[in-house]
């Protein structure tokens, strides 16, 4: 043990010493610390092999990604040439001039046609329908579901379910079925629970989760062009969606009060829940037996339809933008030209990146590559996102403050909550002169 420990340390030292050698041309891409960033590093290593340009993917922990990026922008720093930024940043970063306008590049390369339409709309364009583009869709992502196939396919469970609900136990086709199945598998006395959902209100976790219900029930957060909120955010459809999410919370494992992607994957790996919501980016860990003991019996499905047949999912993911203060903008454009090539996008998908490239997404090869790619493909054509205005975080704070006590604490009614939130958001929009 001591010996191997020693070897470990020397091995690590050798790794540490063999840092990359200097080269004439370098580019730095800034992203958060997670697997896709490692995949991207692998991808750009191939760019280096082709062109000799060294591209480094620099990462920082998720919780500080936003802070670090914007303080760097604020100082007009040239440390990062490109940034793989969240879709919500588009407003703030484009209005403040932190991002290079990519409209010309977008039109020259017909990216609007090459990339899946929803990804162009939410990762690249700001303001909505303006025809101005600030990013190239890079890591597509959205919320989907994983579930325990073995529980679903157990004949005894199937019979019991049919008896109780009058239809066959299978992957839920709509939100009512989702709720039924969650209720059915919720058995606290057996340490089995119905469902794992997002409840973390420290940033956008809870709201992302709620969006899946709210959008699919036909609700919306408001009109992203006119900033009208009243009658949309508190519409009967939105209210029904929020109520559905509250119902789901009743079937979550104990202590499910600050949960996000980590906890939701654990719910599956540790056999706590029958179904679990999560970003597709976190599903690779669920199909490997080394990281998920239940890998063989884990299945995936896209966010189901609402009662009126509408089907949407909350968008995650990021687009890649060129930073205005970069001293290597020309090289950065060359890199982006390489990045949007079909071969590159294919390779990106092979490495584990979630391409937004429509042709790649639609290919049989991609859709069959993993157990969850089919669901991802379906989802990428039905995503919707939160507000992308510069003050989105204030909207988020208000939403968390209103919605969290209702979902987790059962305080008030869905209507009261959304009426109050409508008033909050209107006040914020008034403060920034977006409405009168």
């Amino acid at each position: 043990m001591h010996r191997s420990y020693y070897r470990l340390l020397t091995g690590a030292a050798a790794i540490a010493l063999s840092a990359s050698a200097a080269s004439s041309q370098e580019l730095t891409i800034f992203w958060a610390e997670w697997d896709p960033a490692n995949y991207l590093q692998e991808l750009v290593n191939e760019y280096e092999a082709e062109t000799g340009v060294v591209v480094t993917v620099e990462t920082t922990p998720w919780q500080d990604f936003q802070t670090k990026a914007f303080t760097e922008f604020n100082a007009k720093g040239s440390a990062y040439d490109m940034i793989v930024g969240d879709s919500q940043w588009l407003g703030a970063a484009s209005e403040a001039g932190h991002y290079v306008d990519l409209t010309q590049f977008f039109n020259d390369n017909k990216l609007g046609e090459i990339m899946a339409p929803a990804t162009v709309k939410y990762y690249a364009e700001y303001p909505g329908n303006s025809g101005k583009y600030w990013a190239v869709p890079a890591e597509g992502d959205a919320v989907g579901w994983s579930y325990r196939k073995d529980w679903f396919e157990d004949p005894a469970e199937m019979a019991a379910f049919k008896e109780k609900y009058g239809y066959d136990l299978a992957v839920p086709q709509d939100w009512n079925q989702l709720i039924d199945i969650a209720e059915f598998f919720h058995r606290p006395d057996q340490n089995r629970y119905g469902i794992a959902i997002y409840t973390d209100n420290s940033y956008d976790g809870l709201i992302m989760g709620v969006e899946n219900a709210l959008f699919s029930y036909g609700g919306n957060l408001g009109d992203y062009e006119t900033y009208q909120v009243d009658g949309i955010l508190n519409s009967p459809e939105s209210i029904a969606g929020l109520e559905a999410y509250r119902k789901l919370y009743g079937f979550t494992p104990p202590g499910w009060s600050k949960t996000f992607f980590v906890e939701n994957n654990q719910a599956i790996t540790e056999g706590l829940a029958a179904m679990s919501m999560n970003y597709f980016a976190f599903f690779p860990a669920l199909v490997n037996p080394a990281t998920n003991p239940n890998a063989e019996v884990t299945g995936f499905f896209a966010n189901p339809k609402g009662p009126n047949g509408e089907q949407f999912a909350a968008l995650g993911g990021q687009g890649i933008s060129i930073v205005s203060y970069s001293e290597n903008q020309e090289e950065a454009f060359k890199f982006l030209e390489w990045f949007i090539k079909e071969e590159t996008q294919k390779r990106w998908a092979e490495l584990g990146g979630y391409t937004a490239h429509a042709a790649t997404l639609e290919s049989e090869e991609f859709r069959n590559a993993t157990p969850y790619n089919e669901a991802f493909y379906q989802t990428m054509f039905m995503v919707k996102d939160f507000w992308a205005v510069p003050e989105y975080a204030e909207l988020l704070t208000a939403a968390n403050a209103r919605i969290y006590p209702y979902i987790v604490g059962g305080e008030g009614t869905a209507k009261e909550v959304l009426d109050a939130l409508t008033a909050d958001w209107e006040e914020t929009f008034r403060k920034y002169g977006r409405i009168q």
Partner: protein
Amino acid sequence: MAEVKTKGEVIFNRAAIVAVLIALVIMLTPIFWIGATAFKPRNLATTAPPTVFFEPTLSPFAKLFTKRSQLREPVDEATYAAAPWWEQLIYDGGESVVRNKKTGEATSSGYGNRYMNSLIVSIISTFLAVSMGTITAYGFSRFRVPGEQDWLFFILSTRMLPPIVVAIPMFLMYRAVGLYDTHVGLIILYTAFNLSFAVWIMKGFIDEIPREYEEAALVDGYTRLQAFRKIVLPEALTGIAATAVFCFITAWNEYAFALMMTSRNAQTAPPYIPSQVGSGLSDWTVIASGAFLFLLPVAIFTFLLRNHLLRGMSFGAIRK
């Protein structure tokens, strides 16, 4: 220390030992859990109910030092067999090492470099804060200083403002003077953080040292500086040791500014450790191994200073 004499006191003393042991168990259980998790295979880190007994593995440490990415399926056996032992450990955990395409070298996670940065920054800033703090405390303790209370309160107040708020101006200032992402920058920052604490604690200790000792030394022909060095400093060792331990801990674990004021060159380890939450499952084992290795220097430092820490304040004899 009270001498143990009567039978009642013997019993009381034993009871105290038992109480200390119970406290020890309570205080150390979370630490033990972190230590145990550092040697767990990834799939035993979070189980319901918790896993207490397991076969230890070094897999978390192998992962800690490398950049890895999640594998969707286990590697084929030939690749596995050809891999060095530490890479096999990473494969066991369901991940693969990110390798440089041209050279084939494994990519470092940078933990080793960060660890070194942490050592450099913490040791130097602790030395500076403690030495400046000690002489300043001596100055305030022994001499008339106009507006003494106000100056002391000013020194204390530098630690009162929520640090989040000065982060942006500090960042701009550091950029402007070229201290951003440098070791010197972090050293200055942590010295400033710790100074107010060092001055106050050291003043508390030096105030307790009877000045009769120095007076006697001065009469014996010592200069003031000699008296300070030969009489006051040895007497203040407990205080110096305690202050050094506290300052070192603060600098060693500082997170927010390390993240904001540095990037590739001078970043310390604390921001890195929690970032391992990154991939699909939070890898508790890597966080634990990072935290475990990171705890060692402080623990050793404190253990080495333990006798000074416990010696108590001065002789304490002349209190009236």
